[in-house]
């Protein structure tokens, strides 16, 4: 088991299985099909992301460097949260980007009960260490335990 310390962007605690993307998450490409066609598992539809393509994102501790792609990214993330198809949490190795920050803040302010804790700045070592299906726990102070 290893612990990593990050910065809390939107607060919360959760334990969930890890899903790891070593490249940036293209939010629109990843979520659009799932939101459009009622896929409650939020299966990733981004063919350009070999780490995530075809895998369930809903309920997972999504570990990633940053989000990329269309600036609709924030509202797509907001919609995923509203529909209950969001990851259990977002864990960024880098400082969070403006699109992911917008999505998580919009969900936190405008939606009730759509929890998706977000921690950033966990460092490159975090992303090298964590692997799919490892158990990830976020503590309230931004500590992330991976086992």
């Amino acid at each position, binding site marked *: 088991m290893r612990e990593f310390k990050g910065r809390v962007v939107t607060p919360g605690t959760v334990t969930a299985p890890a899903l790891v993307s070593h490249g940036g998450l293209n939010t629109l490409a990843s979520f659009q099909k799932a*939101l459009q066609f009622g896929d409650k598992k939020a299966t990733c539809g981004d063919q350009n992301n070999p780490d995530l393509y075809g895998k369930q994102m809903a309920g997972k501790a999504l570990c990633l460097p940053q989000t990329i792609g269309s600036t*609709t990214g924030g509202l797509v993330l907001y919609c995923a949260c509203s529909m209950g198809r969001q990851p259990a949490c977002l864990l960024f190795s880098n400082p969070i980007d403006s699109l992911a920050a917008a999505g998580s803040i919009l969900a936190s302010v*405008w939606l009730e009960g759509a929890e998706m804790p977000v921690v950033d700045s966990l460092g490159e070592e975090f992303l090298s260490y964590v692997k799919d299906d490892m158990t990830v726990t976020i503590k309230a102070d931004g500590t992330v335990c991976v086992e």
Partner: protein
Amino acid sequence: MIYLTPEQQGILDGAKGETMAKVMKTLVMYGEVFGADKMVPVTSEYNHLVTSFGLKALGPVYELMDQLIEAGAISQQQFSVDPRPLDKNVPANFLQNFVFNKFMYSKQDFYEEQLKKLGLMDADAFSCACYLDQMGNKPKKGEVLSWAESSAVVYANSVLGARCNRNSGIMDIMGSIAGFVPHFGLLTDEGRKASWIVEVKTTKKPEAQLLGSAIGMKVMEDVPFVTGMNQWLGSELNDENCAYLKDFGAATASNGAVGLYHIEDLTPEAKELGRALVREDAKVYVIDDAELQRVKDSYPVIWKNPDAKPKLCFVGCPHLSMQQLKDWTVAVEEGLKTSGNAKVTVPTVFTTAPAVKKEFEKTELAARLKATGVVLSSICPLMYMNNPLCGPMPVITCSNKLRTYTTARYYTEAEILEKITKGV
């Protein structure tokens, strides 16, 4: 800790109602994440929104819009918006039309009604290139914006000298409603300094969309200071250069996440401040012919059959300027004349802003373009292609943005011209 004026603190505390308090809370949280020191007024005349499409999947966005409208939380700014996703003149088969109209974009009319209530400039205010003269939403140097469309943000910052962060959709309208945005990143002098020097050493004028792609992929969200372009572009921001920078910037913003670039001796801040804009610890990226070729060769071909004959070609993402439209019309005519073909050999759509389209249609070139078989539209090619039915379709384009976000295959402008006029 972000400093709020008594007025801003009052809004946050509910002086203008619960919904406005949430709008302010959203912006304050956004600013705190990025270390903003204060909120600053939005000073542009108009706003621009990225969300133009009534995609059924975005139901929660429309609910949020309704909440804002019902609470009277409406911007004092009118706004333009990105292009519509549909146009009956653009080739689509029966199944595509059925899915587009009855399923995917079934909320389009509803959403456009919401946009009218929220302050849409006019019924033709749909273009990603809202800053084109004909569209009437061209910010002035130093103005603070609350925009989100990535290609428009990078153009406004770099070519016009306005100040805007690379915001997300919805955050754009929040800033406009409040009339304030958090002061961080590209709104600050420090945030506008370059952390990369890009030395262009090519033997000919680089393809704008390829150069932008190379720089975007290298610097990601950083600010590049580009040298070596004077011999190709000179030092005047004329129509030709503005169109070049429009396409270049869109590629930097989509292939990377660039929100501002400086071109030595050309863009306004580079002209004023020169190399004082470059940070002391700036990294260097040299681009020559071989590097551009390497980048082009690195693009994956994700067509199911890489040798398939193209079924559709899009030119104009971002939307074409008037001069580009005229130049393309003449080039296609000449290409067809050389090849002996009467019409384009691949169904081709040129996309431009509605106001440019109207002006173009008043010229004699409109009939000449129509005679070549090219369809002129104001659709968003990206939204047209962003669905499962278009995924397997062999579409070609000279837009590096369209290549990045869809399965469209990229070719240079010269290659596209060859393909659509000669069928090679």
